[in-house]
């Protein structure tokens, strides 16, 4: 747990994607950060997401999909999902046996991937270990940022309660127009950081320590 990498989602990570175009989306949940062949080239297997036209005046909703490991297979629950255009789907795991997954899918006019995030998506990560995390996009863009995570050591329940309350406040990065802002955020252990990807040509959020030197 606690590796910062949207290409390999674990407990404490979430990936959310908005679906604005009606139609069928076939998506796959797999280990590692790459799907071969990619979702756009597949017409079988995976999970089906039906995106129906939104009713007039309908508010967008969030649908959660829980990922678990069964033997050597990663499973998504619920397996079938029908949503309205404009709704979002958020994938996450609480299964310690899941050592990392990514989700990727495609419809006729739309594709998405947690390893190469393009538009109207969110990645969240809970930081459980103190330190300074320099994150970068492994796909070669200059998008990057820094998260400074302060340790907290409490000796009584009041302090722990105050700390727990602080966890309800996230820190945020917004990725838009090839840039990320703010440049850095400061949080304490246990706080969540949201990356909102409004538009990009395909970005991942990865701890630079996980990347080869030339990509740092």
């Amino acid at each position, binding site marked *: 747990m606690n590796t910062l990498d949207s290409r390999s989602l674990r407990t404490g990570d*979430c990936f959310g994607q908005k679906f604005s175009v009606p139609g069928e989306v076939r998506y796959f949940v797999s280990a590692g950060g790459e799907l071969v062949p990619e979702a756009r080239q597949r017409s079988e297997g995976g999970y089906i997401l039906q995106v129906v036209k939104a009713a007039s005046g309908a508010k967008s909703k969030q649908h959660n999909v829980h990922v678990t490991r069964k033997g050597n297979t990663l499973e998504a629950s619920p397996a079938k999902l029908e949503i309205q255009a404009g709704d979002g789907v958020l994938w996450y795991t609480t299964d310690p046996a899941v050592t990392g997954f990514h989700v990727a899918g495609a419809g006729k006019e739309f594709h998405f991937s947690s390893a190469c995030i393009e538009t109207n998506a*969110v990645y969240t990560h809970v930081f459980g270990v103190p330190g300074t995390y320099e994150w970068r996009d492994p796909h070669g863009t200059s998008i990057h940022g820094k998260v400074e995570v302060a340790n907290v*050591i*409490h000796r009584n329940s009041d302090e722990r309660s105050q700390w727990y309350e602080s966890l309800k406040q*996230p820190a*945020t990065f917004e990725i838009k127009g090839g840039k990320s802002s703010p440049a850095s955020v400061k949080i304490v*252990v246990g706080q969540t950081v949201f990356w909102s990807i409004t538009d990009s040509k395909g970005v991942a959020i990865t701890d630079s320590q996980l990347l080869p030197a030339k990509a740092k």
Partner: protein
Amino acid sequence: MPDIIAAADTTATTDLLHDAESTLGTLSKSGGGSLGPFVANYSASVSFSGGTVNLLPPNVIQIADININYSLGLSFGIDLNDFLPSFCLPQICFFGWCTPKICITWPTVTIPISFSDTATITGDFTVTALLSGADWLVDVTIDSVPLIQFGAGTAALLVAIGAAITAAVGWVPFIGPFLALLADAVLAVIGIAGVTGLLGDILTPFVSGLTFTVYNQPQLFPVLPNSGPNDPEVDVTITALGAVVQASDKNELVISASIAA
């Protein structure tokens, strides 16, 4: 009537003891034992030093304050769920998204500890002369397992365990706010009694039957060297060896030998 008699007073016997402690060297043992509610695996190295001799006729050497110098490598496992509260990350909403509530399962961690200290024992040792292979030995063997005096060692080990816990769980996500709670809880269930029990279990086998060889003499030894073709080496054989503590104005360890040419 013995042919050779040698006597050692308390000072000389103390010197013999200290030489014997050095000759005995470092003893090692590994195994498992109880550390409070935990099962600890250990490897232990022990050496003996010091001690003050008091000679008690007819055959007892009382030795006070022998140092047991011990080094321990310990490890034990802790399921953190046994000591830390269940903990769930709160649901957080932002950018129109809400994270699910995620509950943390604490891991089981192994706590490694290195610790060295000195304990002491005081006990009665019986003097025995025996032929072992080709050597005559004078051994002093502890009569019973004495109380091992740990001094401040138990408290020091407890402190070391606390420090080791802090170091070993540093990688565990979200542990920071619970670290003090964890160390306090684990040390409370171990307690001084747990540490004393483990140290006793580890060191007692080294003390039980503890024997120092204070005198070692080959049964056959030359008294005159070879001086030429017609003058060969002259050897003497010790046919009997005795060792007792004799009462006198100052008690002495007396070693007597009978020889044959």
